[in-house]
């Protein structure tokens, strides 16, 4: 509160921190945000939810000066504003964490934190001169606030993904140092890449912020939203379809509002397929500084879920399985034969599919349209020729099955919203009859519950039709929900192995093995 008092602010009490009227934004054939009006009072945390492609990110990009709206009026603390450049938004007191990380990996933490503030009145880089000492000091202060233990001199490229996310957040919170108005902090799916313990820190920080300004918080994890937010706004098809106080809305209601139908109760049936000749057998697998002495077996039609905090080495492990990263000891046996000189290409031809967590950079070719993206993953026999017309037909089919929106097979994949991109990435593997093993690294990251349901549906179908699954789940619940077996990893080693047909661990059991 103390901070709040110290602020001099022109607007009479009661004027909303932010007031939008009739905001509209169209991209080519898509109206991403349609005539949105809303008021956000001071000192409130707003939850913004909606299915993939609902227009959340676009709306937030308008608020942060990345897009100019086609129509509509923005008022900040009672004064009408127009943002032409991100700096304008910063100057007006907006701090943003974008859905995709927007850090410059070759610059230092401190520089990145200072970055989009450079144009505003700010000492460390006044007159275009860098005063490094001061720059680093300021960064230190801010990082401390978020409880991040990152060296401000460190180069972003050297940091772990979580640390980077923390820097992003720290940078967003920076506005309340800089501007003299109450800040409005925008967080677009900041938690989708965080594990529990990191999320906790963020929640505390948001609570802090509430005292000085307002927060807009986007997430697909409804429990989280209800925990953190005072008020929840639901978007659908670019419009606001609901605006509720958190008290007295249940997750199911929210789900209903977002997707337009009730969530199907998912009964969790675990089959025991432990019999059967294992499809994949890993023994004593080790890679220096990443994971060591990992052993397990996956029979066909079986789902193995691996949980662990970031840095537990599970990502590296599955990448090694796919031949994308090297391992220096141990053996992988696939379909009874031991793998030599393994590579992603060989793996693919042998019927292994991999859905990376880094969707935009690794999972897809943004410059290709949906069908082309599906076509380039060629499991099984090697073809010599492609038939574009055929590709497009099959593609359209899968757009239907996966409910990809928009159903535009010509549109570059980069133009779709994250959730819909993910559906295409899944389809590219699921389409193949010869798929034997599917490795999923955070397959639901950034997906709305509806889309998540579709994807999980598909994963189950694949599993039931005999495809083995290795799953790195987003949440422990998900792991327990999907897995037949759950492995827990910590610091590159397996710390627990639960066969869900016999034992029924709680998320807490898993958690304690993780940290």
């Amino acid at each position, binding site marked *: 509160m103390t901070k709040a008092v110290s602020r001099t602010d022109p607007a009479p009490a009661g004027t909303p921190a932010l007031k939008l009227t009739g905001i509209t934004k169209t*991209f080519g054939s898509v109206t991403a945000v349609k005539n949105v009006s809303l008021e956000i009072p001071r000192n409130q945390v707003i939850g913004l939810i909606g299915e993939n492609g609902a227009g959340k*990110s676009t709306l937030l*990009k308008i608020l942060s000066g*990345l897009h100019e709206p086609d129509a509509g009026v923005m008022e900040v603390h009672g004064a009408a504003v127009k943002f032409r*450049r*991100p*700096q304008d938004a*910063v100057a007006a007191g907006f701090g943003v964490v*974008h*859905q*995709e*990380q*927007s*850090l*410059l*990996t*070759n*610059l230092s933490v401190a*520089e*990145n934190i200072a*970055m*989009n*503030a*450079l*144009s505003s009145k700010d000492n460390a*880089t006044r007159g*275009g*001169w*860098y005063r490094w000492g001061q720059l680093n000091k300021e960064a230190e202060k801010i990082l401390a606030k978020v409880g991040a233990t990152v060296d401000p001199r460190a*180069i972003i*490229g*050297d*940091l*772990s*993904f979580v640390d*980077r996310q923390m820097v992003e957040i720290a940078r967003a919170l920076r506005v309340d140092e800089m501007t003299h108005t109450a800040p409005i902090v925008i967080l677009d799916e900041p938690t989708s890449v965080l594990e529990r313990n990191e999320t906790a820190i963020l929640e505390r920080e948001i609570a802090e912020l509430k005292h000085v300004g307002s927060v807009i918080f986007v997430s697909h994890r409804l429990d989280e939203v209800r925990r953190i937010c005072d008020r929840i706004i639901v978007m659908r098809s670019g419009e606001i379809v609901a605006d509720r106080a958190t008290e007295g809305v249940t997750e199911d209601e929210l789900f209903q509002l977002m997707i337009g139908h009730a969530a199907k109760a998912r009964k969790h049936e675990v089959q025991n397929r432990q019999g059967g000749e294992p499809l994949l057998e890993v023994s004593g697998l080790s890679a220096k*500084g*990443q994971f060591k002495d990992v052993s397990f077996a996956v029979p066909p039609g079986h789902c193995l879920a691996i949980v662990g905090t*970031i*840095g*537990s*080495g599970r*990502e*590296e492990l599955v990448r090694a399985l796919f031949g*994308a*990263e*090297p391992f220096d000891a141990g053996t992988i046996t696939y379909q009874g034969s031991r793998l030599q000189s393994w*590579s992603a290409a060989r793996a693919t031809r042998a019927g292994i599919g991999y859905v*990376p*967590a*880094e969707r*935009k*950079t*690794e999972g897809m070719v*943004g410059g290709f349209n949906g069908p082309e993206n599906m076509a380039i993953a060629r499991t099984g026999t090697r073809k010599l020729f492609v038939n574009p017309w055929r590709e497009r037909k099959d593609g359209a089919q899968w757009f239907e099955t996966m409910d990809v929106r928009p159903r535009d097979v010509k549109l570059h994949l*980069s*133009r779709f919203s994250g959730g819909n991109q993910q559906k295409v990435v899944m389809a590219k593997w699921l389409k193949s009859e010869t798929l034997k093993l599917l490795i999923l690294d955070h397959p639901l990251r950034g997906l709305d519950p509806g889309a998540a349901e579709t994807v999980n549906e598909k994963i189950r179908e694949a599993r039931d039709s005999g495809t083995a699954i290795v799953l790195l789940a987003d949440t422990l619940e998900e792991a327990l929900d999907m897995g037949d077996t759950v492995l827990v990893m910590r610091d590159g080693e397996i710390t627990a192995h639960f066969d869900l047909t016999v034992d029924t661990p709680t998320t807490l059991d898993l958690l304690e093995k993780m940290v």
Partner: protein
Amino acid sequence: MANPVTQQPPGSSLGTPSPAATRHRRFELRSLGEVGALVVLIVVFAALNPSTFLTIDNVRTILDQSATPLIVGVGATLVILMGSIDLSVEGLMGAGGMAFILATENSRGSTDLGAAAFVIGILVGALLGMLAGLIHTRLKVPTFIVTIGFWFIGLGIATVLFGTDSIPLLPDGGLKTWPNTVFLGLPFSFWLAGLIVALGWVITRYTKLGRFTYAIGNNEEVARSNGVSVSRIKVFVFAFAGACSGLAGILATLRLGAGSPTVGGGILFVTVAAVVIGGTSLSGGKGGVLRTMLGVMILTVLNNGLILSGVSSSIQSGVSGAILIVAIIVAAWPLRSRLRITK
């Protein structure tokens, strides 16, 4: 792509940082590989030509010969740091050099504006560079092509200025002797180059312009979403590079004592090779002017050494080429990783 995406080295996409990333932060002169290469060359040539290579005179010769590529190299480095490329240097040197000599006292007696002539030469370069930058940013034409275009435009301007009269010559003494006049043991030409390198270093290390240059090279869209006015920076940098070329043109003209549109002949190969050998990445965002200085030194020493060792001039391009290849392979070896992308 619609939304800014952080292109992280895929190796480090999650969790542990990739070795690549950690290596890249090694700053400027701490690039021992290049220093080593230079030392080796010096030792080898000193051994081959004990009586001539390490003499004061030859050292001065090497420094004097390195001056022009150094000056051009500073501009080129900034451009390449943005992930762009500048192929116009030879043309701009020609234009700047001709403009200079025609504006100063010369055998054609065109005019004599004294010191203003220097300003004119540099301005011509800067102006052409700025135009290139504007065309690139406004019309979205790749720098590769824009600068090829300005190579010919610069050459064209120089040729038109040159006309069909006799060669413009500088009078003996005075200006002409300046580059080789020794000051504190080193030729002025090198002091000038050193000054420009220092300027370049300060810019890249301590100014918004410089830091934003790195930002743009790392990821233009992210830079933009971070509030970097990409187009403005680009135009500035190209203008600066143009000015460097102009100045280099002047220096080359002074050393030659005569005006010639092709005064920059062959400089492009040297500078680009030098920037790369120095370890500045052509994809942008990594490297720096001090590295380029190393690269220039390696190539100049190599060239001078080969001549002293009596190597036929016809195989010198071959040797430089081989060295270039070895240099980049050695530099890339420790960074090897299946997931590392190089264009």
